[in-house]
């Protein structure tokens, strides 16, 4: 294969940056300065409108396509949608899900007695959500999952249950995303 020689005009970059790179300096600081001033003026007015939030206390709303930790959807009656079919357990590439099925006298006779996710293994791929036939496990916007012990990273069913209202946007998103009817 013939080698193609590309001549790069390095001067054009240094010219674009201006003498001593002053242009690049100004354009970079324009973003920082506008955020700073926006925050400052907003703070003086009492209603900050820009990106910076006081993180651990305040959170930014994440877009519905964001994949945080997987959670179990809790129905209005306080029970999980999950029927312990085991497809997420099978789909999980890192084997972080463990399910023990059980039997109930409810209309749907099967439920997960145990539903554990080892969050130290989870890699947020979302394959469990894609595999789920019941829309029972979805990727939430929760990301604060660190713990001081290994046992603390094991989330059981009651930890994972999340009311359906909290994940409504994500549910709508995956229905559209996976073209479900």
């Amino acid at each position, binding site marked *: 294969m013939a080698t193609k020689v590309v001549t790069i005009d390095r001067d054009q970059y240094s010219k674009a940056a201006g003498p001593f790179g002053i242009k690049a300096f100004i354009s970079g600081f324009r973003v920082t300065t506008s955020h700073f001033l926006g925050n400052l003026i907003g703070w003086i007015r009492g209603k900050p409108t820009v990106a910076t939030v006081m993180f651990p206390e305040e959170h930014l709303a994440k877009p519905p396509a964001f994949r945080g930790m997987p959670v179990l959807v809790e129905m209005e009656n306080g029970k999980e949608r999950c029927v312990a079919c085991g497809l997420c357990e*099978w789909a999980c590439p890192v084997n972080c899900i463990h399910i023990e099925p059980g039997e109930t006298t409810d209309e749907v006779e099967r439920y997960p007695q145990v539903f554990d996710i080892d969050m130290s293994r989870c890699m947020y791929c979302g394959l469990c959500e894609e595999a789920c036939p019941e829309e029972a496990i979805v990727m939430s916007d929760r990301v604060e999952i660190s713990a001081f012990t290994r046992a603390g990273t094991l989330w059981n069913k009651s930890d994972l249950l999340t009311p359906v209202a909290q994940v409504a946007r994500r549910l709508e998103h995956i229905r559209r995303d996976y073209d479900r009817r």
Partner: protein
Amino acid sequence: MSEEKPATEEATVRLTIDGLEIEAQPGQMLLQAALDNGVEIPHYCYHPKLSIDGSCRMCQVKVEGGRKLAISCNEPVRDGMVVDTKCDEVKHARQGVMELLLVNHPLDCPICDQAGECFLQDYSHGYGRDHARTTAPRRKGVKRAPIGEHVVFDQERCILCRRCVRFTQEITETDELRVFGIGDHSHIGTMPDAPLNNDYSVNVADICPVGALLSSDFHHKRRVWFLEDTPSVCPSCSKGCNVNVGVFKNEIQRMVPRRNDDVNDTWMCDHGRLRYAFTSDETRVRQALVRNDAGDFTETPFRIALEAAADLIRPSLENPEAFAVIASPHLTNEESFLLADLCNHKIPAGHVTLPVIRGDADGFLIQEEKAANATGTRAMGIEERGDGLRGLAEAIRVGTVKSLLVMGGDALSVPEGEGLLDVLGDLESLILITPNQTPISEHASVLIPGATFAEKDGSFTNGEGRVQWISRALNLPEGVETEGETLSRIKAFLDNAKPEPFDAITTLGKVAESVPEYAHINRAELGADGLLSGIQEAPEPEPEPTEVTASGEA
């Protein structure tokens, strides 16, 4: 049908399926001939061990020259037949069948135990629609009804293939299941006073092509795609039914029969199928125990316990008459061979017994001897010496037997072993090698954990002398070894030699060298179906109750 047989009396007929030329036996049905030659024809109601029903219409194929599509399960092969199983006409017919079968199917695969091994699931990928054309609500039926002690019935999922009905009519001949109602109202059921409670009832869950009949033992237990199937042999009686052991996370989840036309066809009894809890329950011995000077058991590393056992046996080298062995019919041929070597040649023990629990036989699969390898253990050279367990108990009482080696706990479960437990305290040393706790351990000087059938490789010889291979399905607890390894190491300690690692395949080679009946046997020859040894203890051939008849056309 007889006029369709080929005029010439040749051994095989030649026919063409989808351009593939195959040979078949005259009188064989087209579906079976195709399946034997690796041509997949979808079917629900056909089962090789049951009579032909022809009710599902799924196996329709186009036979050249035929007026309309033929159901291949009831179409005898003819010489020069040309069959098409893939043309549009056939595909269209199958799509129609699938759509009608799914009209009232609840589609609850996520909660159905059959999902993953369901014919309806498999074929709906090939012939099903992606959505229903019906708008009427699906028919409701009884769900998870206990139709028998071990079987759960879900009427909504049933496709009325009648395999289960034919099973209870032809195999068990108990007639519990039948079709009630007509037309759209047909459903499978039992009479109110006769639930499905026979010794082979769970087989209907195996043959059910959908999730209508399910084993209540496996109900909602584990998805089938998580199970690792290991071919093995049922340990519960001397029939030696071939099984697949389904394992998840080192625990047996279920046992299902594996087809072997020479032994169990495709069936097994409920007793054997449901008896696997002993492999992982709390009675398992998981740690070697040696009695200390104060008389209490102390947990001991496995190797040290073996050394202690060898030290207790060593005095018997000079005084073999005071040594006795209670062998076990649960050991493999290879392990029994090592044990026989120990108690016949190394120490010609005064007493050797082989307690075998006996029960009722039913003339079909359930046999009298409730242990997998009593025949093989005897063939390896474990012969009763010293008047059985009663004689042994007497000898211990009067003090002629001072040292006893016990394999397993069956000795207390046979009628002859009644008084044995009372005299065991008189022994100087008692070495117990057992996978499960038994009252004998109260008197044991050394307790060494053993392995169950699921934890070792080896071979069993069933009651008719068939040698069959079992494979390791479970891992033993850390540091614990099989009886074969234990015996070979104890022997090495007695010899002050370096122990040879026990290997079932090489030991089977040694068996073939020393036991004339096993001369032709080796691991490769055994294959999956086993091989008859030279032993013919019970040569009466089983009456074949499951003959496939061609009379389903009526």
